[in-house]
């Protein structure tokens, strides 16, 4: 009889792409426990969760709307992680982009979309870059751990938004804590009339394509990956690791900023408190699930769009709390992380 033995060696190549799929299955088995708690039929739940969103055009469009910012935050995080820079600050950088967009959008009063659109994009990108700058410089120049600083920057900007909205930017008409609406010309155009799907979706796809090119096909990408996998060796072979990481961190922040400007110019049309609602943190999950690969990130973002739309459907149809979506997302992250460890082992047949 043959016996199996586990040994430490890279798993066969086909395992890698199979892991996210296996993780999804395992996650849904785990979340059965929580669904059983509310005493509804799990099969019904999964039907509404995963299938029902595809049965109507409205919810399919909504899926894409939900995926839009995740394309960008996922791309931002994947790009930075690829260079070994643990940017946890996409949340704050997104908000910085949103602030920049909300400001410029009002300034552009009476402009035309041909001028406003590129300006909005650049401005949102720069907002994110600016917010990413402090932790990036501290990391590169002084070696301060970026995880904690990017995280702290997230908290700081929440208060800045709250200051702006309660103070100088408070909507003079409604007196709600929200900024005045941006100019018509600065709003991202709709891809489908009378829906919420906007130009940001295309922007997200373009960004994913660009970072795919940057990472895999450019000299900069080579340096970036070298810095990420072995900084010492990279330095030895003449790569300026500091500058590479700095550039990566700033681009990553800029991409997160794009997500922010998209939310302002495509969805809300003004700045509100809690605009981001964890999009930056979810971006980390999306990037991890996508194995830091832009194509994987795109798929993961769409899948998360499905989960978010699905959790709303489930909630409406069966009364299961919407927060099931968050539980599923986080469980999925943990299971995937655990399963990636398995790729270091392979099953060997003996005798």
């Amino acid at each position, binding site marked *: 009889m043959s016996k199996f033995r586990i040994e430490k060696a890279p798993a066969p190549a086909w395992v890698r792409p199979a892991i996210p799929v296996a993780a999804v299955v395992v996650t849904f088995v785990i979340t059965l426990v929580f669904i059983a708690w509310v005493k509804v039929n799990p099969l019904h739940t999964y039907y509404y969760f995963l299938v029902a969103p595809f049965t109507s055009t409205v919810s399919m469009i909504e899926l894409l709307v939900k995926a839009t910012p995740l394309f960008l935050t996922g791309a931002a995080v994947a790009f930075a992680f690829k260079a070994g820079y643990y940017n946890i600050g996409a949340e704050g950088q997104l908000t910085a982009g949103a602030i920049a967009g909300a400001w410029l959008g009002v300034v552009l009063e009476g402009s035309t979309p041909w001028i406003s659109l590129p300006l909005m994009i650049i401005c949102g990108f720069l907002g994110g870059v600016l917010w990413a700058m402090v932790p990036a410089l501290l990391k590169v120049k002084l070696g301060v751990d970026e995880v904690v600083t990017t995280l*702290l920057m997230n908290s700081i900007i929440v208060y*800045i938004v709250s200051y702006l909205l309660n103070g100088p930017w408070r909507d003079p008409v409604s007196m709600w804590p929200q900024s005045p609406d941006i100019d018509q010309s600065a709003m991202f155009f709709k891809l489908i009339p009378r829906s919420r799907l906007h130009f940001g979706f295309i922007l997200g796809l373009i960004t994913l394509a660009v970072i795919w090119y940057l990472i895999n096909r450019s000299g900069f990408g080579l340096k970036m990956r070298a810095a990420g996998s072995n900084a010492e060796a990279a330095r030895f072979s003449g790569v300026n690791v500091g500058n590479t990481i700095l550039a990566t961190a700033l681009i990553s922040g800029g991409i997160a900023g794009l997500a922010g400007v998209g939310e302002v110019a495509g969805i809300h049309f003004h700045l509100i408190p809690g605009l981001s609602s964890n999009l930056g*943190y979810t971006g980390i999950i999306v990037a991890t699930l996508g194995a830091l690969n832009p194509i994987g990130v795109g798929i993961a973002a769409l899948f998360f769009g499905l989960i978010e739309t699905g959790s709303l459907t489930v909630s409406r149809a069966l009364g299961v709390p919407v*927060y099931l979506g*968050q539980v599923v997302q*986080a*469980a999925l992250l943990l299971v995937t992380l655990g399963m990636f*460890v398995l790729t270091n082992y392979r099953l060997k047949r003996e005798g």
Partner: protein
Amino acid sequence: MLIGAFTGFATAYLTGSLWAGVFAACLIGILAGLLMALMTVYLGVNQHVSGLGITLFCTGLAYYAFRVIFGTPSHPPQITPFDQVNLMGDVAVLGPIFRQYPLTYYAIVLVPVVWVILYRTNFGLKIRAVGENPEAADAAGINVYGVRTVSLMIAGAFMGVAGAFLTLSTLGFFTFDIIAGRGWVCIALVIFANWIPQRVLLGAFIFGGVQALQLRLQLTGVKFPYELFLTLPYVVTIIALTIANRNAAYPAALLKPYKRE
């Protein structure tokens, strides 16, 4: 693994806040710590990402459980919180200072206890050894995985109780944004304090003081951008981090998973 716990802190904090009873909070915190240990110690997964994952998981679960148990009430379900305990009677100045919740006293007492455990016991020596140089600790016969797991469970228990403090002592009810990132603040606090327990206490007073001060300033009605004032602790932490980094007081093996070959 002094602060290998790191993000596990934030996590357990969030879970603990839902269940009535410090004990339950403690238990659930330990569970979250165990989960963190499974991910980071045994599977050797990146601590930032798994910590964040556990945080999101626990937040989601707490919200979910809240909805399942309480539905969507128009008024948050209330409990009668702990009474304040007065140690000093009506002595001027000291009286009001010593009118605190029981958990506050325990928290303050915990600081010297943690210090004694870390610096004066065999177990504390092991924790620090594992945090500084797991290879050497392993060679000396210390169970690195075991010590890290127990540390994470203790950390989880503390964080669970901390969450329970908010619901059981100060508020008496649970709201969705009750934690408001306090778990992350405490990571900043530990860095600010250079991993020294008594300095954590000092830091906590400063952070708390800034919060209290801005509330007072708001009450006086003086036109003052108090939101910007609230960013001060974070800004100070970033500065402290920058300076502290020069002195390199981190446990050397911070954030490094240890794999026994």
